[in-house]
């Protein structure tokens, strides 16, 4: 079984803070991390491999520094890492990103056939969740998005059973291999990295490819040029009218507020539990 996980380096939005006065990002303290959903994707691939045997590879597109998240993936238990890094990829939207990644995946599959691709549900910097399903189309694999559980991998039958989050619950799905999954955080818990993995990761150097290494590539589909979407304007959202800060001591404000809420009595109903 050869499982490939697509991983992305993102700024840590937990630490990154928005300055409320200037409305801009405080980038000084923003470390780059492995996208949390992708960490769960790597963990899931490692879990599947423990059952079926095989190889877990990770693939990332990004700047040279993205090597750090490949090392992080090795810590979790991936065997091999590939980084595609080239100016030509810069400025890619989801369409151009899925194109570049699928070209790299095709190249990797020439070395070793791919049975499954796993992506995180989305990256926390863009939140689109569009790249995974895009790759699935390009590689002609059936996609299963929003996976919350990998229930069974039936290697002989080349099938996999999954739970997929849906509106109002979940659905149980059987998919044929090769397929592409995108995973939610619920899919697993990230385990502590065993010492040998840490040591391996520290020394690990991934395979780094530029566009020229990817074989036949239509450059017009890469990066900014290959991206149909562009950012038009940026603006502060229209404010809501009627905002009113209450005045006086806290006690007075609390009294005023409860009084104001009472005036809206037709709107809602409280049942106070004393």
């Amino acid at each position, binding site marked *: 079984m050869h499982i490939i996980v697509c991983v992305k380096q993102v700024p840590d939005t937990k630490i990154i803070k*928005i300055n*409320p006065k200037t*409305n801009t990002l405080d980038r000084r303290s923003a470390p780059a991390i492995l996208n949390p959903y992708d960490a769960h994707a790597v963990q899931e691939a490692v879990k599947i491999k423990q059952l079926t045997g095989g190889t877990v590879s990770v693939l990332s597109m990004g700047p040279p520094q993205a090597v750090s998240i490949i090392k992080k993936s090795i810590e979790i238990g991936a065997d091999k890492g590939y980084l595609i890094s080239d100016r030509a990829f810069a400025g890619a*939207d*989801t*369409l151009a990103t*899925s194109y570049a990644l699928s070209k790299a995946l095709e190249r990797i599959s020439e070395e070793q056939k791919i049975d499954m691709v796993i992506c995180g549900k989305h990256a926390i*910097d*863009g*939140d*689109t*969740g*569009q790249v995974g*399903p895009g790759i699935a*189309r390009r590689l002609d694999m*059936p996609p*299963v*998005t929003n996976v919350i559980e990998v229930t069974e991998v039936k290697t002989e039958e080349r099938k996999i*059973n999954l739970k997929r989050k*849906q*509106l*109002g*619950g*979940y*659905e*149980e799905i*059987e*998919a*044929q291999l090769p*397929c592409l999954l995108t995973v939610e955080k619920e899919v697993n818990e990230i385990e502590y990295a065993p010492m040998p993995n840490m040591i391996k990761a520290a020394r690990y150097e991934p395979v780094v490819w530029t566009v020229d290494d990817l074989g036949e590539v239509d450059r017009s589909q890469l990066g900014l040029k290959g991206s*149909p979407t*562009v*950012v*038009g*304007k*940026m*603006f*502060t*959202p229209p404010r*809501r009218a009627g*905002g*009113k*800060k209450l005045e006086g001591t*806290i006690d007075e*404000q*609390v009294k005023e*507020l*409860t009084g104001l*809420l*009472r005036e*809206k*009595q037709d*709107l*809602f*109903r*409280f*049942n*106070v*539990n*004393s």
Partner: protein
Amino acid sequence: MGESLGVWVFIEVNDKKIEGVSLELLGAGRQLADKLNVPLAGVLLGDGVKNLASDVIYYGADIVYVVDDPVLKLYRTEAYMKAVISLAEKYKSEIFLYGATPNGKDLASAVATDLSTGLTADTTMLDVDLDKRLLEASRPAFGGNIMATILCKKHRPQMATVRPKVMQALDPDHGRQGKIIEEELHLREEDMRTRVLRIVKEVTKTANLSEADVIVAGGKGMGDPQGFQLIHDLAETIGASVAGTRDAVEAGWLPHELQIGQTGETVTPKLYFAIGISGAIQHVVGMKNSELIIAINKDPNAPIFDVATYGIVGDAHEVIPKLIQQFKELSKEKGGELSYA
């Protein structure tokens, strides 16, 4: 381009019912279509869904494209995508909207790839630039309390997924006439590579949230788990549901299902308490359509005050107990029930 094109909306059907977000998109799509002076079409797929076509028209569509086929009984990317692509190739549209639900996002991503066109995710505002006939799909931008308008200049259709509950559905007009166009799908079940074995309904915490009249939401400003307990206390006192920000979820004070915002739920309760919440745009897009918003924050400059109906500047740890006490006192006057009835 050139030909007469339309605005399309993907009509999501679950349990033989049209999802609310699809009706909302028919409302939003109607406005765009009127501005552009083109027809609005609904794309209705499923097994035994033909009878829903008239509803699609009542809610604003001029045309309904229907593909009714057993293979489409339950959502599967491959089958739905093929149906949509064949319609898109035959009839052409200039704008194509989908609800930002698990299925809507999944389908839109696949369709955009095959049509080699642009797709904007989780849009919360829609408009058109009439001169250039461009869809302006806006969403909170990464890295700031600002919105970014995403354009797709050269490729058609211009596609977007739109958050549920941010657009307004029209009141159904049962006299409205439209055209229903049926198409066939030549797919065989044997060729499908995925099967849905079972659908499990769960009464999720989220479901309760979306129905709650009153929500008490807490943020990072509650400080620690004990501090966050005050949010639960207030909610319990007034019979409200609890929710919070992503930072509160990441701190482990609240399960992810109860996160409000761009990557969480969108809610529209009658009354929303935002306590110890700064009011980042990613949070605000999920709650700003609440009828009344009460903000409690110790920072008078916190952006949450811009969206709040009423604000109290103060320390939540001091304000909440007083608020609870005041609610209880008021209710005593009224014999257990606050006069809010």
